[in-house]
């Protein structure tokens, strides 16, 4: 049995370690674009207030997985899936290869969703979706700190990630302005009362919060970037945090059924019987994407057990309570999902 896994986030890594523990003899290959090891994605949101983050965010170097006889192809991109032949084409750092699989697990996660009107201005803003993005942001910020200056930030999007990043930059001492389209913060996850208390916590940390903002685009003004909402205001840097987009392109090209994510049944199986998907990319029959760490890990462990013949029946979502990492904020009601 050869199982190929695409993606080294919590989904891919939890799956592969669990499957290895259950089936010591199986051949396991994990392909990832990452090169820094397995790291904690939630900790990206503490990436400015934690000095040692670039090291401490790494939970497991890839060599630790290799020591469990898991083949890791890192800094590599899967360029195509061929379901009829059961192969994946891999563009690695040193070579291109074609790998055969018995089962394929798609766990590529998501990238930052950039609204179409912002796309022409791509070089004018940052995003914070992975460790490479964080390192870029930290280098940029350090350039200011080295000159005894603080960059003025605009964060576009007052959802979960936008609020977390605004909070972390503000408690680190930088001036932050948060633009949000809706009339209240994190309106998808919080009841109104909690949105109000979140607003007060952010203001207390020094964040300038602007609600009901229709950001139309960006423009360069000398060293600064201007955020245009009808009026314009200039900042040293802009971070766009307007949601996530599951990486479904490979699955689409392979002819798998997709919607917002890759469609799976209650056993996490895609429209091809040999291909499974989990995590941010997997869209369950109820239309939901369980893009939080606890249910993703739960999916991964369940699927490993299922493929090892130790689970039967369906995957059932566990109880979980996501939590925004905003300094000083505790919601009084459970998050909506």
């Amino acid at each position, binding site marked *: 049995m050869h199982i190929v896994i695409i993606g080294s986030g919590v989904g891919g890594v939890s799956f592969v370690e669990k499957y290895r523990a259950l089936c010591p003899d199986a051949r396991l290959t994990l392909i990832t674009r990452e090169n820094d090891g397995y790291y904690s994605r*939630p*900790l990206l949101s503490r990436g400015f207030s934690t000095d040692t983050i670039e090291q401490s965010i790494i*939970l497991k170097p890839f060599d630790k997985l290799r020591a469990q006889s898991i083949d890791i192809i890192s800094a590599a991109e899967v360029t195509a899936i061929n379901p009829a032949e059961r192969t994946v084409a891999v563009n690695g750092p040193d070579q291109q290869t074609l790998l055969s699989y018995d089962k394929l697990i798609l766990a590529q996660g998501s990238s930052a969703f950039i609204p179409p009107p912002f796309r022409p201005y791509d070089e004018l803003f940052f995003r914070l979706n992975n460790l490479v993005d964080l390192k870029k942001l930290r280098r940029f910020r350090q350039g200011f700190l080295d000159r005894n200056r603080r960059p003025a930030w605009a964060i576009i999007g007052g959802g979960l990630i936008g609020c977390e990043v605004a909070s972390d930059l503000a408690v680190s001492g930088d001036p932050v302005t948060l633009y949000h389209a809706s009339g209240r913060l994190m309106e998808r996850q919080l009841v109104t009362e909690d949105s109000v208390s979140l607003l007060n916590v952010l203001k207390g940390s020094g964040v300038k919060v602007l609600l009901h903002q229709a950001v139309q685009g960006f423009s360069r003004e000398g060293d600064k970037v201007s955020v245009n909402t009808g009026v314009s205001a200039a900042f040293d840097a802009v971070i766009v945090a307007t949601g996530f987009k599951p990486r479904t392109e490979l699955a689409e090209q392979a002819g798998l059924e997709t919607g917002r994510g890759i469609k799976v049944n209650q056993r996490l199986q895609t429209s091809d019987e040999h291909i499974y998907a989990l995590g941010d990319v997997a869209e369950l029959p109820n239309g939901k994407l369980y893009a939080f*760490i*606890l249910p993703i*890990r*739960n999916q991964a462990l369940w699927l490993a057990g299922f493929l090892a013949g130790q689970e039967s029946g369906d995957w059932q979502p566990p109880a*979980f309570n996501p939590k925004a990492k905003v300094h000083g904020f*505790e919601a009084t009601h459970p998050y909506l999902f």
Partner: protein
Amino acid sequence: MSDFKKYRCSVCGHIYDEAEGDFDTGIEPGTRFEDIPDDWRCPECGAEKSAYELME
């Protein structure tokens, strides 16, 4: 009491700080890691207590 230690979840990076306890899961501030019930799980990712490692 001083000398409180911190432990890190090896699955998601969540930190259990003995000085702070864990409000959400009902662990009082000042609770030593070894005194947390064995069936306690990481509040962030659900990993078992044994997934935690002492931080240097």
